[in-house]
């Protein structure tokens, strides 16, 4: 999917505007990124960069890497949402910045 924004926080805001159902899975009540949510820009974890302030540019691939336990996944989406969303790893939840 393609999202726009100059930094991760803006890209996530755009993502949650496009797919509101994903918001509670990504953010806690204080609108902070949940600790088990790992976001990578290219091959780098935003925790090793500037967190949600990490700048992104045109064509950057942002990946959301869920914690899966062999039969478990953090993102529980209904079938309807799943049909709208690409699958949750690699290219799957890869988002491209515009």
């Amino acid at each position, binding site marked *: 999917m393609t999202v726009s924004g100059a930094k991760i926080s803006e890209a996530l805001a755009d993502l949650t505007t496009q797919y509101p*159902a994903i918001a509670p*899975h990504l953010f806690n009540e204080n609108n902070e990124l*949940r*600790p*088990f949510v*790992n976001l*990578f820009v290219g*091959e*780098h*974890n935003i*925790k*090793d960069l500037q967190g949600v302030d990490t700048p992104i540019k045109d064509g950057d691939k942002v*990946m959301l*890497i*869920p*914690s*899966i*336990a*062999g*039969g*478990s*996944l*953090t*993102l*529980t*989406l*209904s*079938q*309807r*949402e799943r049909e709208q969303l*690409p*699958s*949750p*790893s*690699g*290219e*799957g939840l*890869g988002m491209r910045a515009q």
Partner: protein
Amino acid sequence: MIEELSHDQILRYSRHLLMPEVGLQGQIKLKNSSVLVIGTGGLGSPVALYLAAAGIGRIGLVDYDIVDSSNLQRQVIHGTSTVGKLKVDSAKERLQDLNPDIQVDVYNEPYTSENAMRLAKDYDLIIDGTDNFPTRYLTNDVCVMLGKPNIYGSIFRFDGQVSVFHAEKGPCYRCLFPEPPPPGLVPSCAEGGVLGILPGTIGTLQATEALKVLLGIGEPLIGKLLLYNALDMTFDFVTLKKNPKCRVCGPNADIKELIDYEEFCGVPGHHADDTSAGADWDITAQDLKARLERDPSLILLDVREPHELEIAAIEGAKNIPLGEVAQRMAELDSAEEMVVFCKRGSRSARAIEILASAGFKKMKNLKGGINAWAEEVDPSLPLY
């Protein structure tokens, strides 16, 4: 120390011996190696088969489960003839048939904080082929504390992840996932589904990494996470760094001994009765049948996904998939008594939690789900 290979073994491993990266010395190294495989299921099947075929001298298998026919879609180490047997015995039988030269030690017990160090300490490396968060964190912490490599693989539906967590040389599992997701966000193993071939792909990659680590060849996935998606056929790699705040391998680590992992993850790891919403909420299939005979207008709420209704359904039930319950509860009347069900009882328990927090009180959870209904009341329905 076993120094030599017999003529039979030289013939058996000749395709390895031909490659300079393995060669005779490498094959002897494998013969003197030991690997503990946690879980003899989807991931453990290909891992154990290929490691046995490769001539790893000693393989340990930990599992406490029994082979079920629903396992055979992906757990290829077992077979129709071993349904009903202990998984570790079924697996050992297959491995010894594949390679009688190796030693297979079986541990028919759950992998827990009580036995994990004892079981793991004599093995060169550990394969994480588990299916739940508590055992994954346990496996990680044991490996960090014993200084052993943890060959990690995990799967869901069409997605897989592989890495080598070796805290002495790179990050550990906790560096990437400091804490597990809250239990409410996690569907249980048997509910989510998985492409049967996926653990084959991921387990085979784990076996490859294990062999490389044992032989000291190539570049193992230390500090890297492989992300595989079978639908798109994509392989992505991301870089993992040691987390300076890691509670088990960081400089200020405060977890120095094994903890209660079920409590840490907020979910049961073993022998979990995740088909119940708690005794107060539960209704058995037999009791539901009796209730329906007395009160045919009793509302039934099926919280499974629409495609599951094609497999089995209870006539007259209203379908709202679990993921939509919060948004669609206006369609339900909290004054009316309602029995909620899913496949096994865990998603319906979650739905009851959601509805209870919105003020619904007159609810029951069908314990064991539609599978229990099929077993106890309506045998015309299939189990799945």
